[in-house]
């Protein structure tokens, strides 16, 4: 290395590039670890789908008291949050993210059908919300409704919120939007099987679903009595 020559500029560039490539590899390593975790979640999803189908089969012979919260539902929130994070870091066009979202959507629909069947059989009042968003036109209100629904789940853990990317190429989602006549207008919420559009606050949703407060107070009363 020549001390005062211009070769140092090249040496510096080579060293900086080596550090940059090292950083790139390190970042890719952590990403691959995440993908491994996603794969593991995917396997979990596959297993849960099987579990869900078995529960369907058992439903006709199983008493209501044995049908607690679906194990699927417990995982939905964490998978949903991870998906949102991955969408932000890897991008909405990432094939891994899209694949996971497809499987996640199917899982949600399975859970929705199962919980509807349970509600009907056991005459339980399980509030459902279907939420349709879009990544196509930079829908800011979708992000805000997402925040509202997350808080709603915190306040009322018994509410089942199922979120779907309207434009995800999954035929089952199309079937769902046809059933509930959901227009291409975002954000769209299906509450009491009727679509409502636009940004809604927590108070708006509580007003639209007065049963939330009743169920919450009865749950509190039950837990107090225990």
């Amino acid at each position, binding site marked *: 290395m020549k001390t005062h020559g211009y070769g140092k*500029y090249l040496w510096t560039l080579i060293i*900086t590039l080596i550090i940059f490539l090292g950083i790139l590899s390190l970042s890719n390593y952590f990403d691959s670890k995440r993908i491994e975790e996603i794969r593991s979640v995917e396997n979990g999803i596959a297993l849960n789908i099987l579990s869900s189908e078995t529960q369907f089969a058992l439903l006709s012979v199983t008493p209501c008291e044995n049908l607690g919260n679906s194990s699927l539902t417990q995982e939905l929130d964490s998978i949903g949050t991870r998906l949102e994070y991955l969408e932000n870091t890897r991008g909405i066009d990432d094939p891994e993210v899209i694949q996971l979202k497809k499987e996640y959507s199917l899982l949600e629909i399975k859970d929705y059908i199962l919980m509807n069947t349970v509600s009907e059989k056991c005459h339980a009042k399980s509030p459902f919300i279907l939420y349709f968003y879009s990544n196509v036109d930079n829908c800011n209100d979708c992000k805000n409704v997402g*925040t*509202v629904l997350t808080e709603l789940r*915190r306040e009322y853990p018994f509410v089942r919120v199922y979120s779907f990317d309207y434009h995800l190429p999954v035929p089952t989602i199309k079937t769902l939007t046809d059933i509930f006549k959901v227009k291409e207008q975002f954000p769209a919420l299906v509450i009491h099987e009727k679509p409502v559009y636009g940004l809604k606050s*927590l108070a708006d949703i509580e007003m639209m679903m007065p049963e939330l407060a009743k169920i919450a107070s009865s749950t509190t009363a039950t837990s107090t009595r225990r």
Partner: protein
Amino acid sequence: MLSLASISVHTFLFISLYVQIFLIITLFEYYDAQQKKKRAQLTVVAQASGSSPTPINYPTVTVIVPCFNEEATVIGTIESLKSMNYPADKLSIMAVDDGSTDNTWSYLEQYRNDPRVQIFHKENGGKHTAVNFGIEHSTSDLISCLDADSFVHPEALQRMLPYFSNPEVMAVTPAIKVRTPQNLLEYIQFAEYNVGIFLRKMYSTFNAIHVTPGPFTVFRREAFTRVGMFKAAHNTEDLEFALRLHSHNLKIENSHTSFVFTTPPQNVRALVKQRVRWTTGFLLNAKDYRKLFFNKKYGHVGTFTLPAGVFSIIMVLFFTSYSIVNAATSLVQNVINWNLIGWHWHWAQWQWFYVNTTTERFMILAVVITGLFIVFIGKRLGSGSWKPSRDIFSYALLYGFIAPVWIAISSWKAVRGSTPRWR
């Protein structure tokens, strides 16, 4: 797909890392050269042992002290010069009162009968006119200037002399330090000046020093005959003169052990004002000397120092704007959330999955680590210690918040071509 913002962030971080690695490589080269020099000196000493020592031929030196309303510090400055370890018959001190409106002149009059100190009074014309006045009235081999708010180490001048043994060297810059820091702002500047000591030393190894600071740079008289006298130069005459020397392919050295102690601004307003003058002066002079940029004919000052300086200003502007936009977006989002869901606070649960491991984050980490390394090397050069101290913490935590203020103001002034005032 990468966004434009992401590409810009990565580009800026890459170039920052490049600049810092360039300086660190220079540091290793410098240490290597020092080791070789020491070994060579030992050989010479071994060969010359027994012979009588060669007498040192001291050159004559004039130190000009330009004063404008410096009644509080000028006496201390002159006394520190008088206390320098240098033959009295070879050193003359010349205080030039540049039309002060306070009691500076009456303070200077106490030296009227001092054979070592000459005092002059002239109409106010700016610092460069006071220094030029002193140069014109001097006859010494070497000429120096010392701002009237600075104080020299007794050995400062002695330690500069060896550099002048190279006839190509036209100026030797000192190591400027903050005098015993007392408050937070002074601690920040203390670390900053130490980083400056490191940078100036590194730049000197490849003749790329872009400023010959007012506090005690020593010039060969020949420098003024070859390139001319000081100019107003957007109130940063020391920066312009260095660039002018480079444009004549002349050499500027640095003596990192010739300590000069300066009195830093005492409040944020004064600090911003001083730095606006420096930074605007840098930008306007860089524009005036744009022919130096990326021109190998003028050496590394044009291929490294000036581009790196301009780049660092653009980078600070970019990251400040980027951070402000992000903070504002986050604030607006929080207000929207508050309207939608009310006030709710939830502790986030730590999970490795959500730890940010993007290339951007790792690049920031690399830039911060190399930056801190440079700060510690500066501390070592300036204070002789590696120990983490209050000045380093203050600098690392707060400098990034105050520097963008003067950089933004200076950039705006430079775009408008307006020269900031001295005071």
